[in-house]
C-alpha cells in the first residue's frame, strides 16, 4: 500500500499541493484527473522525490516517514520501490532499448549482466518490442519509446508505478498501443498504480479509484462511476462535462 498524508508543496509563494491524502493498495489502480496546473504532476514527482515535499507523511509497504524530513535512505527507498513513466519518455539517449531496460537492474539492483539481459528481453517482449532490442531511442517512434520506458520501470519490480501523462506527447495513432500496454500491466495486479491522464475513457475503464484534483486539493474521490456519473461538486461537474466520455471507445 502507498499512502500519502497531508502532502504539501509550494513553489516560491504559490502553493501547488494543499494537503493531499491518498491511499492506493497494491494491485489497485488510481487515476488522478484534473485541469492543467491542478498539481497532478507535482503530486507524482513528490512521491519519487523529483520534487522535495514541504510537508506530509509517506508510507510505502513497511516503511513510513516524514516526507519533509526524508533521509537519504528514505529517498533511496522511495525511488527504488517506485518507478515513474514520464510524459516525454526520457529514455537514456546513448543506450539501446535493451540497455535502457537493464540499466536499473545492473546498476541499482546489482543483477549479473546476463540475467538482467534475459529479463530485459522478456520485458521488451511483453511490451511488444522483441524486434527492437538493439535500437537507440532516436530510431524508435514515440509510442515505441514509451513502451520501452514502461519496460524500464517494470524491470525494477516496483511496489508502485507512477504514470505522468504517459500519452500526452504522443501522436493520436500511437496512444492506443501505449494504453494497451498499461492496461496489461494493470491486469497483473502486482503494483499500486497511480496514473495521471487526460484520457478519460481509458481512466474510466481501467481505474479502481478516481481522484479529482483541483487547485492542489482532492475535490472528489471514488469509483469511476461515482466521480464521472455523479460528481458531488460543481467544479468536478464542470470539468467532467467538458471531457467527452464516449461509451463505444475501444482500445
Amino acid at each position, binding site marked *: 500500500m502507498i499512502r500519502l498524508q497531508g502532502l504539501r508543496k509550494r513553489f516560491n509563494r504559490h502553493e501547488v499541493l494543499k494537503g493531499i491524502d491518498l491511499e492506493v493498495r497494491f494491485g489497485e489502480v488510481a487515476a488522478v484527473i484534473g485541469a492543467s496546473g491542478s498539481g497532478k504532476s507535482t503530486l507524482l514527482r513528490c512521491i*519519487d522525490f523529483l520534487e522535495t515535499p514541504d510537508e506530509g507523511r509517506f508510507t510505502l509497504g513497511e516503511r513510513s516517514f516524514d516526507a519533509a524530513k526524508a533521509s537519504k535512505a528514505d529517498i*533511496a527507498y522511495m525511488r527504488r520501490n517506485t518507478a*515513474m513513466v*514520464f510524459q516525454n519518455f526520457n529514455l537514456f539517449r546513448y543506450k539501446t532499448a535493451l540497455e535502457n531496460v537493464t540499466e536499473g537492474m545492473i546498476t541499482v539492483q546489482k543483477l549479473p549482466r546476463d540475467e538482467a539481459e534475459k529479463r530485459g528481453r522478456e520485458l521488451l517482449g511483453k511490451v511488444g518490442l522483441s524486434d527492437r532490442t538493439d535500437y537507440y531511442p532516436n*530510431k524508435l517512434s514515440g509510442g515505441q519509446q514509451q513502451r520501452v520506458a514502461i519496460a524500464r520501470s517494470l*524491470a525494477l519490480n516496483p511496489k508502485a508505478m507512477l504514470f505522468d501523462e504517459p500519452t500526452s506527447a504522443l501522436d493520436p495513432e500511437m496512444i492506443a498501443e501505449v494504453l494497451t500496454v498499461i492496461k496489461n500491466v494493470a491486469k497483473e495486479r502486482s503494483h499500486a498504480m497511480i496514473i495521471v491522464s487526460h484520457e478519460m475513457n481509458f481512466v474510466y475503464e481501467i481505474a479502481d479509484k478516481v481522484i479529482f484534483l483541483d487547485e492542489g486539493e482532492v475535490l472528489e474521490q471514488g469509483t469511476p462511476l461515482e466521480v464521472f456519473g455523479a460528481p458531488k461538486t460543481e467544479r468536478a461537474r464542470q470539468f467532467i462535462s467538458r471531457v467527452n466520455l464516449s461509451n463505444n471507445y475501444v482500445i
Partner: protein
Amino acid sequence: MIFDPLLVFTRIPKVLKYLPITMEIAVASTLLSLVIGFLVALIKIRGIPVLRQIAAFYVSVTRGTPILVQLYATYVGIPIILRALHADTGVVNSIPPVVFALIALSLNDAAYSSEAIRAAIQAVDRGQIEAAHSIGMTTWQTLRRIIVPESLVIALPSLGNAFIGMIKGTSLVFVTAVVEMSTYGRQLAGRDFRYLEMYVTLAIIYWVITFVVSKLLSLWERKLKCDERAVGGGSGNDTLTRFAEKV
C-alpha cells in the same frame, strides 16, 4: 648550402627518440587537467561558497597570464615555497623537473577545460537525470553512468582541441629543464648550427602527430554518438527493409 633539405629528413629518426617523452607529458598533463577541470566545473555548478570564489580566481589568473610565465613561476616558485615551509633542501632539489612541467601544464589546461566541462554537464537534458533518479540510481551512479558519458559527447571536440594544443605546448617545458623533443632538437642543431632544418623537422613531426590525433578523435566522437549510426551495426539490413516496405 643555406638550406639542406636532406638533413630535414635524416634527422627525423634521431628526434623521434624523444617523442615518447613529449607524448607522456602531453597525455599525463591532459589527464590531470581533466580531473582538475572536472572538480572546478562541479564547484561552479554546485556554487559551493568560498571554493567557488577560489576557482573563479584561479581560472581568471591562469587565463590572464602567459603559459611561459606560469612555467617559470612553477619551476622557481614551488621550491621557494617549499623551503619557506621548512622542507628539507635535499628533498626539494631532488624533485624531478618533469613534475613542475606537469603541474604548470595541467593547471593551465584545466582552467580552459573546466569551462567546456561545465557547459557540457549543464547541457545534459534534465529529463535524463530525472529518469536515472526515478529508477533508483544515486547521485554518483547518475553522474558516472548518465551525465559523464552524455557530456563527453558534447565536450569531446573542445577537449580534443585542448589535447592537440597540449602536444604543441610541451615544446615550452625546456623552461623547467625537461628535455623533450623540441629541446633535444635544439641541442642537436646547436652542434652544427643547422637550426632552420631542425625547426622544419620539428614542424613536420608535430603536424603529422596532430593530424593523426585529430583523426583518432573524430573516430572516437563518431563512436560515442552511437545513436546516430544506422540500426543493426550499419549493415545494409536497414535500407533493405525500408526498401522492402516501399515495394
